[in-house]
């Protein structure tokens, strides 16, 4: 069988084992306050370990709390209880080694492509050989010739390339992606998926990618974390041992996708109240 279904077990690992873990999430709960003292539970007892260099796909239905989880890892939202550790350090706010890519390109319309890409580096005062690094990613993302364009002049696919370049120029150790390709057409999406995998293979960052698309999850990730339920829990984690580059037309890809769909169904039944 190609896809092994693993159960998640929360054990206290030995210190050496801890070192291998890039991201460790323990007993994470998140609720949002509602009027009249009530609260809306979103995430419940999330436990997750992500190894250095993993490409983890967080798969779940729309509105189940995937983005909230990503925002917590990125330090933009505080958890209600539980901890998130990166390299053994608890996260308490945005972190230099973590960069996030939002659902929309969130480009600044008053800056041109080049300044948008350099934005983060300028903010952090990392201006040494900025020109060189920005140009490197302009070339890598196929943006040559568009340096002086403004976001309003770009197609949505180009805008997405710019925002990927802006995130990657920071050379993140952890790259969080919140459905980055959701608003793209199929052709643009599959090209960018392919390019993202190539960049990951060469840069070696740890990626956490949120999606509701099973095909995308199987295409990109070496591990899939199934989220589900209300409030949202980790229902299953699945390793995908398919070699890159993966093709949507491969028999193995199709088989794997089918297995995950089935496992998703059984998990839903198992976790049903």
């Amino acid at each position, binding site marked *: 069988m190609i896809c092994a279904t693993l159960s998640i077990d929360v054990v206290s690992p030995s210190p050496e084992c801890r070192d291998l873990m890039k991201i460790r999430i323990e007993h994470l709960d998140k609720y949002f306050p509602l009027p009249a003292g009530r609260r809306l539970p979103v995430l419940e007892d999330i436990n997750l370990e992500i190894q250095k260099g993993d490409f983890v796909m967080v798969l779940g239905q729309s509105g189940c709390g995937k983005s909230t989880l990503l925002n917590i890892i*990125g*330090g*933009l939202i505080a958890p209600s209880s539980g901890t998130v550790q990166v390299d053994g350090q608890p996260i308490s706010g*945005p972190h*230099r080694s*973590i*960069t*996030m890519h*939002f659902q*929309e*390109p*969130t*480009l*600044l*319309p*008053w800056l041109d492509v080049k300044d948008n890409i350099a*934005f*983060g580096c300028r*903010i*952090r005062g990392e201006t040494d050989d900025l020109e060189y690094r920005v140009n490197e990613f302009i070339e890598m993302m196929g943006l040559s010739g568009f340096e002086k364009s*403004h*976001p*309003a002049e*770009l197609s*949505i696919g180009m*805008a997405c390339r710019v925002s990927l370049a*802006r995130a990657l120029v*920071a050379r993140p150790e952890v790259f969080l992606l919140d459905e980055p390709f959701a608003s793209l057409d199929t052709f643009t999406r599959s090209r960018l998926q392919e390019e993202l995998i190539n960049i990951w293979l060469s840069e070696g960052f740890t990626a956490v990618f949120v999606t509701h698309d099973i095909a995308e999850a199987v295409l990109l990730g070496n591990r899939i974390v199934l989220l589900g339920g209300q409030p949202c829990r980790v229902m299953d984690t699945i390793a995908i041992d398919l070699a890159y580059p993966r093709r949507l037309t491969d028999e193995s890809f199709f088989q794997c996708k089918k297995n995950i769909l089935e496992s998703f169904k059984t998990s839903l039944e198992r976790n049903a109240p």
Partner: protein
Amino acid sequence: MSVVANNVITPPNGQHWLVRFCYSFLGGLLSVALWAIIGHMLFSRPGYEQFSGFLPGPAARALARLFLDSRFWLSAAASLSRVVVGLSVAFALGLPAGVLIGYYRRLSLTTDLSVQFLRMVSPLAWMPVALLIFKSFESAIDFLITMATIWPIILTTAAGVSRVNPQWINMARDQGARDRQVLTKIVVPACVPHILTSLRLALGVAWIVLVPAEFLGVSSGLGYLINDARDTMEYDRLMAVVIAIGILGFFLDGAVRLAMKRLKWYGDART
């Protein structure tokens, strides 16, 4: 023989500028005609002959004389400098206030009632107060212009700040921006269109308040010229100054509109 029409490409939204100009010209002509008809009806009655200066013909001749008169340009310069001083003070105080009120919700809740109240007080109502506070008429006029323009500046800027795309702020924070940088690198630049809108509003208000404010004891400015013409009963000159005020105001507003147009990202921005 074929007649090739003027092959002008019409922009998809709206008419060619020549067509627009023709419409504007026609509208202007109609306004002048209306002015002439109503003026004749009013001032051709016996006993009203001395007011015939208000009619288009005499007013136009007076306007030509006015534009050749250096005293008019000195007065216009004096008026403009008052608007600039009053607006500068209003922007210096109103912009930071607007940014802070838009950024901090609690501050907005605290100040909303006062700003809404003060906004509705006619700036000219402050005239006696201005004369008590300031020794010179000059400063009193600047004060009145500031009082008239600071409220639209605060409100428009605050509205702009509170509508900044929250994802831009999240993105900046994720990239490591501190509070101060979020304010200076995201919030303020994102508000530039709103700030220009507030400049346009404020300029309009300032230009309106200027004339009555210059009825105060100063001896220069466009408002003074109107008062002076009335006292000397040169009604053609009075009408000419009124028209000149309109023309100058039109060009001031046009300058700001041009600046707004120049901002490429104003309006349709892909975010």
